[in-house]
């Protein structure tokens, strides 16, 4: 058994090297890239933060998430670069005049022909347009069609269908709601409160995301949630879901454990800044 040796000529152009490594070819073109996901590159490639002045026009058309501006960079130049993320499965997907919403931590890179926006669901990002993007998942991605309910931890994203709603099983609703059947102690129980508010991240199998309508739901074949960066809180505004503090991500906490948005120019959190 011989292990293949790759060089710039034999690396695929915009394809998988193995299930865990993706190769992007740049020919004077640009890609948006999440910080720290590049593992190696051949050629002349430059990495610039979103706030870099020369990228003004590109950012105006393709990047619309101030909360994530500190986490993304633009790679430009010519050569081939390898992307990978914690040895998770990596795949590229094509959108053709479409839309897809994905967990913020799972999106590794996308072509600027797509526009990135924050989903109305906190912790998720929506890509709109035509182009290619690269996403990571813990285990291969499985495609399903609504109507269906999915475990929150297995959800990677969804395309074309309406955003999901929370579904709580009857037992949970009864315990949390302080209904006539439940005792007073139970109705104040932390489990019930957590289940109702989502605070504390408790989600057993009593809680699912429910999808209806026509579209595709993307699931990962694992319930291990990828450690995510704090995605920050959306502004305090009437009518903005999750506008309260502390509701930042749907999953993990950032290194500082805060729900504060990460703005360019903010001090602290140096590790993230260096992309290592």
């Amino acid at each position, binding site marked *: 058994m011989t292990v293949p*040796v*790759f060089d710039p000529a034999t690396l695929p152009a915009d394809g998988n090297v193995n299930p865990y490594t993706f190769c992007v070819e740049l020919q004077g073109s640009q890609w948006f890239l999440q910080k720290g996901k590049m*593992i*190696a590159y051949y050629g002349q*490639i430059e*990495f610039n933060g979103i706030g870099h002045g020369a990228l003004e026009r590109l950012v105006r058309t393709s990047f619309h998430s101030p909360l994530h501006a500190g986490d993304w960079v633009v790679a430009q130049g010519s050569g081939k670069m390898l992307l990978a993320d914690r*040895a998770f499965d990596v795949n590229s997907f094509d959108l053709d005049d479409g839309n897809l919403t994905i967990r913020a931590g799972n999106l590794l890179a996308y072509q600027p022909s797509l526009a990135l926006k924050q989903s109305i669901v906190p912790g998720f990002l929506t890509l709109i347009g035509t182009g290619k993007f690269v996403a990571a998942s813990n285990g291969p991605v499985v495609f399903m069609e609504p109507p269906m309910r999915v475990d929150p931890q297995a959800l990677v994203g969804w395309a074309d269908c309406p955003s999901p709603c929370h579904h709580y099983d009857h037992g949970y609703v009864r315990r949390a709601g302080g209904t006539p059947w439940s005792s007073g102690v139970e109705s104040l129980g932390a489990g019930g409160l957590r289940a109702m508010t989502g605070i504390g991240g408790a989600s057993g199998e009593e809680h699912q995301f429910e999808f209806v309508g026509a579209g595709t739901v993307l699931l990962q074949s694992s319930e291990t949630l990828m450690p995510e960066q704090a995605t920050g809180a959306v502004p305090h505004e009437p009518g903005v879901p999750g506008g309260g503090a502390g509701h930042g991500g749907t999953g993990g906490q950032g290194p500082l454990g805060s729900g504060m948005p990460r703005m360019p120019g903010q001090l602290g959190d*140096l590790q993230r800044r260096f992309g290592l």
Partner: protein
Amino acid sequence: MFRLQGSKVLAVEMTGDSVHAKNGSMVAYDGEMAFKKLSGGGEGLRGMVTRRLTGEQMTLMEVKGRGTCWFADRASEINLVSLRGDKLHVESSNLLATDAGLRTGTTFTGLRGASQGNGLFTTTVEGHGQAALISDGPAVVLRVTPQYPLSVDPGAYVAHQGELRQSLQSGVTFRTFFGEGGGEAFQMRFEGDGLVYVQPSERNTVAGDV
């Protein structure tokens, strides 16, 4: 004779010869085997002094016998490397096993090593024979030629072999300190002729905390 059984278990057939392997990495054997503790950083008194000074400690064991011995380490992917007189540089934490005929030693790597969080020294393996490397996810082997130098993220670097010069390349600018850097502040640049092994995952590095 090294052989992969699946991608996460190394099987070594032995007929009276011996291999060096990471301490505690044996998962099974058949036949007759004897296990003896060794230490990395080179043999003898000089090796011992080197180990003390460099901190590049590797607790190795020598396995000798007849039969088959299986090795594995925390379900990490295993990559086989054949050496034909050339030198392999590898992080000691990424080295699983080598033919006993291969010489292991310690070299100074300078800033590059520091940026990886593994100290200023790295392990070298030299001679003729096989070595087994472990990585987080299967390693990708990239060829470096004079016309195609390669830049690697220090957190994804596993090993390299051949005639390669390496240097630390910094993308740190004033923007980095304002949170608008390129996100890839340090890279290892390889020039010359040889192979570089990278893993599809980035371990945390000291440079990441700088």
